[in-house]
């Protein structure tokens, strides 16, 4: 009996050993995956996807539209910042007075191009070019800015592009471009210099020392014409007029183009002082000024403050010679924000 028992126990032990070995082999999940950092980390990643930019822009436009309709400026600062905030505020004030929002405030929802930066830090700017408006107005260059990680994008500037102007090429949004700084080198002139010189050219016209560095553009022409007209009127009345253009420090956004140049969007404030001679009153020169001036009492001197937004394209130093070696204004915006009777 003991022999039989022993054999049985041996067999049971063998079966148990086989099962134990088998179970220990059981349910291998395979090798644990190793998490490797994606190789794309070394590559620049666009700050926004195209969908994200669209969502952001749509959200902002919705808020702006609502404010346009309600004429309630309380929340405008949530959607706008910088020069555009001032411009739109003025526009809405005028619209309140005249019950008619300036058509130039229209911003189409469809875009032709968006330029998204790959910057890791803040502030960041996104340049977007819209299509022409329904009533055949020119395209708008929108500049959105995110000042810090915890804030959202806001509309910083809008410039109406000149007719027939040729924008520089930028990297596609899935690759992303790069924001520039006001001191970018390798260009015909730094963005800061460009804005300063352009302001001088605006102020002095062809008599400016830098007139040759800038291509003739629609904005200069218009301003010149306006000034001439007002000058003639002033001379008839033995008055004087003076307009000064001053770039605003820090209000400058740069996007580097694919060919090495920079597209600069900057704010240039201008003050227009008109003195009527011979004891006449200096009246607002336009509907907008009139609306802004409102019920003020005109005096012989009137000072109107304008906010100008200009878009300049600065070619790289190594670009072709000749006609190319000038800074070209791509678009501009001009809006009186304050009318004072001094």
């Amino acid at each position, binding site marked *: 009996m003991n022999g039989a028992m022993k054999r049985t126990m041996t067999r049971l032990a063998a079966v148990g050993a086989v099962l134990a070995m*088998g179970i220990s*082999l*059981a*349910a*291998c*999940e*395979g*090798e*644990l*995956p*190793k*998490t*490797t*950092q*994606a*190789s*794309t*980390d070394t590559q620049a*990643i666009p*700050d*926004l*996807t195209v969908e*994200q930019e669209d*969502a*952001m822009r749509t959200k902002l436009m919705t808020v702006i539209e609502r404010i346009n309709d309600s004429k309630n400026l309380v929340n405008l600062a949530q959607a706008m910042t910088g020069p555009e905030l001032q411009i739109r505020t003025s526009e809405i004030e005028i619209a309140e007075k005249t019950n008619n929002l300036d058509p130039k405030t229209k911003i189409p929802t469809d875009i032709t191009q968006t330029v998204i930066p790959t910057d*890791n*830090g*803040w502030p960041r700017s996104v340049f977007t070019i819209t299509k022409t408006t329904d009533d055949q107005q020119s395209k708008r260059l929108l500049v959105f800015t*995110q*000042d*810090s*990680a*915890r*804030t*959202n*994008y806001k509309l910083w500037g809008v410039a109406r592009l000149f007719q027939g102007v040729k924008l520089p090429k930028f990297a596609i949004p899935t690759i992303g471009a790069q924001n520039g700084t006001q001191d970018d080198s390798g260009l015909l002139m730094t963005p800061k210099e460009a804005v300063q010189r352009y302001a001088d050219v605006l102020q002095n016209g062809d008599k400016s020392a830098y007139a040759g560095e800038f291509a003739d553009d629609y904005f200069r022409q218009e301003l010149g014409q306006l000034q001439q007209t007002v000058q003639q009127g002033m001379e008839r009345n033995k008055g004087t007029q003076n307009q000064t253009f001053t770039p605003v420090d820090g209000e400058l956004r740069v996007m580097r183009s694919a060919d090495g140049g920079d597209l600069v969007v900057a704010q240039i404030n201008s003050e227009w002082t008109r003195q009527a001679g011979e004891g006449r009153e200096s009246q607002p020169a336009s509907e907008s000024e009139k609306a802004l001036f409102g019920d003020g009492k005109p005096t012989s001197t009137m000072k109107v403050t304008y906010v100008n937004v200009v878009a300049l394209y600065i070619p790289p130093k190594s670009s072709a010679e000749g006609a190319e070696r000038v800074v070209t204004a791509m678009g501009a915006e001009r809006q009186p924000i304050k009318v004072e009777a001094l």
Partner: protein
Amino acid sequence: MSETSEKTKTAQRPHEPTRHAKIMRGIVTPIFGLLAVCFIVFGVLNATIWKPSRHIEASAHVQKTQYIMVDSGVLGSVDKDVTVSVLPSNTQADVCMAVGTQKDAAGWVEGHPYVRVTGLDSWTQLSTVDQQAHGTASPSGNDVEFGDSDMWREHVCTVGQARLSLKDMVNTPLVALIDLGATDPASTVTMEWDRQQVPDFAMPFYFAAGLCAILAVLCASVFALEPARRRKAMGLDGMDDDASTFQKIRHVVHGDDDEVSVGEAVAGTFKTVGRSLKRKPRDPAKGHRRHAKAEKPSSPAIVDPSNRNMVADAAAAATVGATSVVNAMDGAEVPEEETAVISPDELQAYFARLAREEHVELPEAPTGELAPVSVNEPHDELDQYDQHDAASGVQDAADDANTESDGVEDGNAEDNSVAEGNSTEADNDADDTADNDNADGDNTADDNTADDSTAADSVEDDSAADGTTAELSADGDNGAADDNVGDDNADIAQADEHDQQEPDEDASTEEGTQQDESDGPTEAEQATSQDEKSTSEHDEEQAEREEEDER
């Protein structure tokens, strides 16, 4: 008859498995078969019960941190689709989870400490690392809520558990950022994947099972064959003319004179198994001689010249020793080159010479004494060869000397006594062959030379089997050859069945005896070859004996 028995016995040989075949079929093949079965079982288990699970769920418990960042690469580490869920300890807390780029998430948590989920510790545990705050937090009036930020690709903000299902997370620089709120949070982060591709552990087992099965089949069939048979089974001829002498010995000793196909080898395996189970009352391999006659030869008589030589060699070895075998072997090669068949004429000549030699008194008695030693030995070996009917017939005739009717036996006895002295002279096989051919015509009357040698009777019985060796020594026949002529004729009538064969032998013997001593070596040579013939003749004689016994 004897020929039939030989054929029968030879035909039974293939069923007798060799030791090599037994090992291969009985041990190695079952081992491989068991291995194949085991591997298949393991393969099936790995494909079913032990299959790696498709759903992977790993979690980590995090405490005292507001922000949890899942590193890039972790989200898509197991599968491209992942579901991330966060369960706060306080189920009423607001929890937000978002997916964005690494730089955006890092910018958001600037100035705050956070916990990083860096990977998988195990298949159920996530590994975490505490990260110190870097930079400084600069809150401003324009700050937005976590869920309102423009930076996130996807986000969700709920009360309690937040789940986010993400797709195509492989090779993306995205991270997940979780905001648990500022109020002393503790939570559990869980990531779930459904693997689309699980590791296949079954295929290697199936592959190994296939290999073992193939090996088992090969071991049972091809590898179990003798190398010679295997070569034949593979289409090669195992016994070329260039085959070494050792191969030939082995070929003969192991008895594989039949070509066996692979199918027959496998069939042989099953027959062996069946036979062990059935316990047949009679083992055909060991069939007794008396039954052998009832069995017809399974195949036509295959004449292998080497066999003839081997018979002579065996007889020579029995009497003289290894050297004779060697000599026989040397002699074996020659006839193969010249003759392929023992013609009846040759046998006739041999018988004639045999009969003649029987009557030779024993000048070489010493050699004759050795004769008895080898008398019985060639019998077993002689059984192998179908073609040695003539020789066996001669031997039978010699054995029948006791029955008085056969003088051939006497002659054989004398031949043996004489032949033994000359057995060493078996080197001259070539000459013997030629001489035998020449002597064929003369040996018709020499078969019954045994009648003359009454004195040799005593030695006859012993030397009957030694008829082969006796024939080798034709010298002693000198004197008896003439006397035996007449006797040969008489004996011829008695040994009807072997007329054709015995006369040949006697004729050759007669020649050997007729020749003088000068021709002794030649005669010896002849005798040698004739003795080789007589090996087969011995078988014939044995068959004759049996038949005569039956009569």
